[in-house]
């Protein structure tokens, strides 16, 4: 039984919301049913097979081939199974997913992993702004699971993030971890301005020293935190620097802030 494979016929003329695909489990639905799923394309409704060639069998695995940055909400609400995106993903990748895995071979658009509660997203390329962030009005961004970005993340990565782990191999943009509520963000490369602004709690682990932190962060000293060993163990084997952190943990410089908001967040900078 082969995976259900949707091959994008051509770049769609407007953004397409693919959440209907994962609104219910794929398994148990017929290929004909999938082909006939109504999708909104601009101000019209089209059948899914007007945009995609449908092959394979609906089940636990879904492949989207020739994917494009106009395909929004891939894997929204995913509860289990796997989605493999060959190409780029649009905005809201994996929105509110609770389980399963999504891999993207290219880049992901804005708000990937927003409201994510569980499961795993791996993006080989870059992620757009507001990765793992809350959409306006939602009070929590990512709330669980693991996100691993092979490339860079845009601005505001982890804004209002509440739980889970967000790992960015490359660099992160401005205001990383803004208004972060809790959870763990790790960045391998550089970060932009004002990391941790209005952060409440949570951990930002930077493998590369930042150019500066907001004035509402105070230095607390240099420590080998046992907690980091737990993270290292949890991440062991992941591609990139986080999969190879020393098992005994790291020694880090610890900064706490944002003092405007209780100051219980931490930015840890690898020595």
């Amino acid at each position: 039984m082969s995976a259900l494979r949707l091959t994008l016929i051509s770049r769609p003329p407007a953004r397409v919301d693919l959440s209907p695909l994962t609104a219910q489990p794929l398994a148990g639905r017929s290929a004909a049913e999938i082909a006939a799923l109504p999708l909104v394309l601009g101000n019209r409704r089209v059948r899914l097979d007007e945009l995609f060639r449908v092959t394979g069998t609906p089940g636990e695995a879904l492949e989207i081939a020739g994917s494009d940055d106009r395909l929004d909400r891939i894997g929204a609400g995913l509860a289990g199974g796997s989605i493999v995106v060959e190409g780029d993903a649009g905005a809201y990748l994996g929105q509110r997913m609770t389980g399963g895995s999504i891999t993207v071979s290219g880049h992901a658009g804005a708000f990937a992993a927003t409201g994510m509660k569980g499961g795993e997203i791996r993006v080989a390329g870059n992620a757009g702004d507001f990765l793992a962030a809350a959409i306006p009005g939602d009070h929590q961004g990512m709330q669980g699971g693991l996100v691993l970005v092979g490339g860079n993340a845009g601005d505001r990565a982890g804004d209002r993030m509440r739980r889970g782990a967000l790992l960015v191999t490359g660099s992160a943009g401005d205001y990383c971890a803004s208004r972060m509520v809790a959870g763990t963000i790790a960045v391998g490369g550089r970060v932009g301005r004002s990391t941790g602004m209005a952060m409440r709690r949570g951990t930002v682990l930077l493998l590369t020293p930042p150019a500066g932190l907001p004035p509402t962060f105070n230095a607390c000293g240099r420590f080998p935190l046992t907690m980091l060993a737990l993270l290292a163990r949890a991440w062991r084997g992941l591609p990139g620097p986080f999969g190879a952190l020393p098992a005994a943990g790291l020694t880090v410089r610890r900064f706490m802030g944002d003092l405007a908001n209780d100051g219980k967040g931490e930015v840890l900078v690898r020595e």
Partner: protein
Amino acid sequence: MSGSPIPAPDSAAVTCPFCGLVCDDLVVTGTPDAPEVRASGCPTAANGYGQRARSDGPRIAGRPATLAEAAAEAARLLRGARRPLFGGLATDVEGARAAGRLADRTGGVLDHMNGAAAVRNLLVLQDGGWITTTLSEIRNRCDLLILAGGDVTPRFPRFFERTIGARETLFGDRPGCDVVFLGHGPSKGTTLRGAVEVIGCDVPALGDAFGVMRALLAGRPVDADAAAGMPIAVWRKLVERMRTATYGVIAWAAPDFDFPHAELTIQALCELVKDLNRATRFSGLPLGGSDGDVTADAVALWQTGFGLRAAFGGGAPEQDLHLNATERLLATGEADVLVWIASINATRLPPATTTPTIVLGHAAMTVAREPAVFIPVGTPGVDHAGHLFRTDRVVALPLFPVRSSTLPSVAQALSAIEAALGGGG
């Protein structure tokens, strides 16, 4: 559906549509074709009323046409569009109502020409809220006025005059109101009666300063020696003044926070105000309302529950403050027809784009590139009656024509297009 013309109850006073203060005390005279502000004016009003019509009538691809023909061509373009963008939206309540109706009907997107600035505030409202006040409260109560981002009079020329200018207040005489500028100081010629302080800080880093003041107010240690380019002592002193003011106000004009993610700065400001209100009274004042931005947002909000940047393609409105931004929709080609509405200020031209564009423009507008359809429209409060919301989102003021005009209102032009779309859904 703009309603029957409403006679001005007090013709000596005219209400001005040209900035978000929507002053209702102007004296406008002159000939019907050339109204002039005689009293209670300002440079913005003078410019606004001084805009002289250049267009004779509607055009299709540059060729003169009747309103009906132009509407028919606009309807033809809209019928073929997958994602029409109703942008600009510089119009009155009636125009905004008509735009909402047409966006619903055509499955389009609504955004305003000041959308980027408006969204900075909206994001704060949606994510944390705020404590704010309105102009008359400031006029009577304010004893410390802080302008975050610097002087606002280039955008709102009569701001000081209308707020803290009066000596006589409901609660006794006020010798003066202290004013603190965060950013650039008062424009030349500004006279203020109270103590004036200019803190020439780095405006895009003001969020840091608000954060520092929040930390200090909460009694937390701050080790940094500077924020937003100023020593911490400056902020320590300012927050102490804020804490001890009787009724302090911090105003900002979102367009002045023209840097990425400025909503974080505004939120920091609003949270500082909330913190202050645990023990004292202190308010924010978001300044906007120009070009009908508050109006367009308010109308869309009440009709659909969502304000600007809502899309109707899926049948129900869906707001997306990021994806549905005019600049993005045009840059990516996702919007395939642009309806650009600019009835207040002739210089607010449609963005440079190859997207087919229908302009409902001020009759004085000179477009760089001839749009597919151009319909010159009247200005509310100049050519026809209408309603505009003031900056505070509370007061909607009636506007009355100051000259006789044959120009259609935006509402009328949009209704003509809607009629041309034909019956049924």
